């Protein structure tokens, strides 16, 4: 059973979003997503300063059997990407909600998070997908 922390918001495309006290957000991929991909061998993160629309493909996570785009759950500007992933993509497998975060984003609209799924709804979605 995948972990779905209750304090995060989720996108249907299996990304999570954490609201930080300073109004910025942290974004990563969910436990379900990292498990489906298997051992990650490479992560391509966006450059700081890039502006994103919700749904933009903004990162690539690659395992030996798949390479998947990561879609930004919200519109905003990339403040910082997780540089540690360049040499240690396995951080996503080991700790996808912590050390395996992908990027920190300044949301264009502070209310955008409200449109995302709460943990319970995401869990329902996973159950419906058979995961």
């Amino acid at each position, binding site marked *: 059973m995948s972990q779905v922390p209750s304090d995060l918001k989720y996108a249907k495309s299996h990304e999570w979003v954490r609201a930080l006290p300073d109004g910025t957000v942290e974004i990563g991929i969910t436990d379900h997503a990292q498990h489906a991909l298997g051992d990650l061998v*490479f992560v391509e993160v966006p450059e700081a300063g890039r502006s994103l629309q919700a749904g933009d493909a903004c990162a690539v996570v690659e*395992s030996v*059997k*798949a*390479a998947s785009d990561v879609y930004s759950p919200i519109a905003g500007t990339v403040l910082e990407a997780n540089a540690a992933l360049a040499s240690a993509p396995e951080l996503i497998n080991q700790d996808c909600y912590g050390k395996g975060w992908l990027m920190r984003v300044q949301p264009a609209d502070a209310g955008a998070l409200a449109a995302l799924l709460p943990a319970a709804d995401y869990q329902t979605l996973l159950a419906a997908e058979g995961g």
Partner: protein
Amino acid sequence: MPFVPHTEADVREMLAAIGAPTIEALFDEIPPQLRIQGLEGIPTALSEMEIGRLMSERARQDGRPLCFIGAGAYEHHIPSAVWAITTRGEFYSAYTPYQAEASQGTLQLIYEYQSMMASLTGMEVSNASLYDGGSSVAEAALMAVRAHRKSRSLRILMPTTVHPNYRKVSITTAGNQGLRFETVPYARDTGCIDAAALAAFDGEDITAMVIQQPNFFGRLEDVDALTDWAHARGIFVIAVVNPTSLAILKPPGEWGTKGADIVVGEGQPLGVPLSSGGPYFGFLTTRMEYVRSMPGRIVGRTLDLEGREGFTLTLQAREQHIRRGKATSNICTNQGLLMTAATIYMTLVGPVGLARVAEASAARTSELLAALGRVPGVRLAFDGPRFHEAVICLDRPVAPVLRQMEAAGVLGGLDLAGDYPELGPALLVCATETKTSADIERFATALGSALKAVRAA
């Protein structure tokens, strides 16, 4: 039935196991109105003896003229061992090495090939081959667009000193994705890229520049200055090189201050016969930082369950069978067997032998040009450093001259009238280590007689 081993009893028993009355019944899901009854338009079967005789007659019809054409396909000595080993069934009739444990021979050979090509071109990584020289230029242009993090213009500088057919293939292949190839002219006195013309692109967003060395005319470009010019403007450099020449010429990885970014070319000179244009193979090498933007298969060395070294296809998530519509290329089948031949060729000639082949080819071309210089009505189009090819100008139209020479059993070079009409009657000629002084004398005599005959006509 050729190549079908079934006896009548086999067929009977197999149909019984299936539960079908006839073989015909196995096709009962095909809508009947679509069915055909045989292929009468195909000729009757030939036995091996008959086809052997037919093919020998056809081959004899084509003969073996003395050939001084180069232009991207070069006649070199091929050691007997190259094709004796390449056509062993274990290489010849194996599939792509997807089942690594049952394909270690092919995989290790590809790893050795990648190592040789990376070193020859002065780069860090090589793929396991592309279709040919022309398509590899197109793939390099597409790769540059993917790998370049800043330029979004899709504009590629394409000098006219690049093989005309490579330019055409690039447009066919990459044009549909919006790439634009901007022409850069050559200087009429040198036959090299016109450096002054490059100024027109100063300050513009250009993704990459293609530099062929030696260029289509056989001339050596000032690759250091060109590479530095491009890099100073954030333009990627795509080197198109002749692998034989790299035994003596500076590898693209050392061009200018930073070296070229992507290196491609036609692998045919490395042990692959001329064979009417194929199968050849394209090669592509680059720096490690761009490895994930590369098209085509790549082999890596790794360990097995017991910690022993082994080889496997790697970075496959770039490729079409996994990444589908977002793959770096649609290439699947490559030119594996030709890459095999090239690896054996490079091993047999080694670093010393390859340099000897390169030097001997260059020397034979110099000898050829000296001999042709003594023929009235012939002059060298461009003077200056060259490898093993050159353009000569004639005082009569080229086509009838070539026809006369052909009658004497000599193929005198490539008529440039179609692609470079501004040169007037011009002929691209090439000599490699396979040509003797007697061959060169025969060429000079045939050219002299042909010119005389055309003048008289």
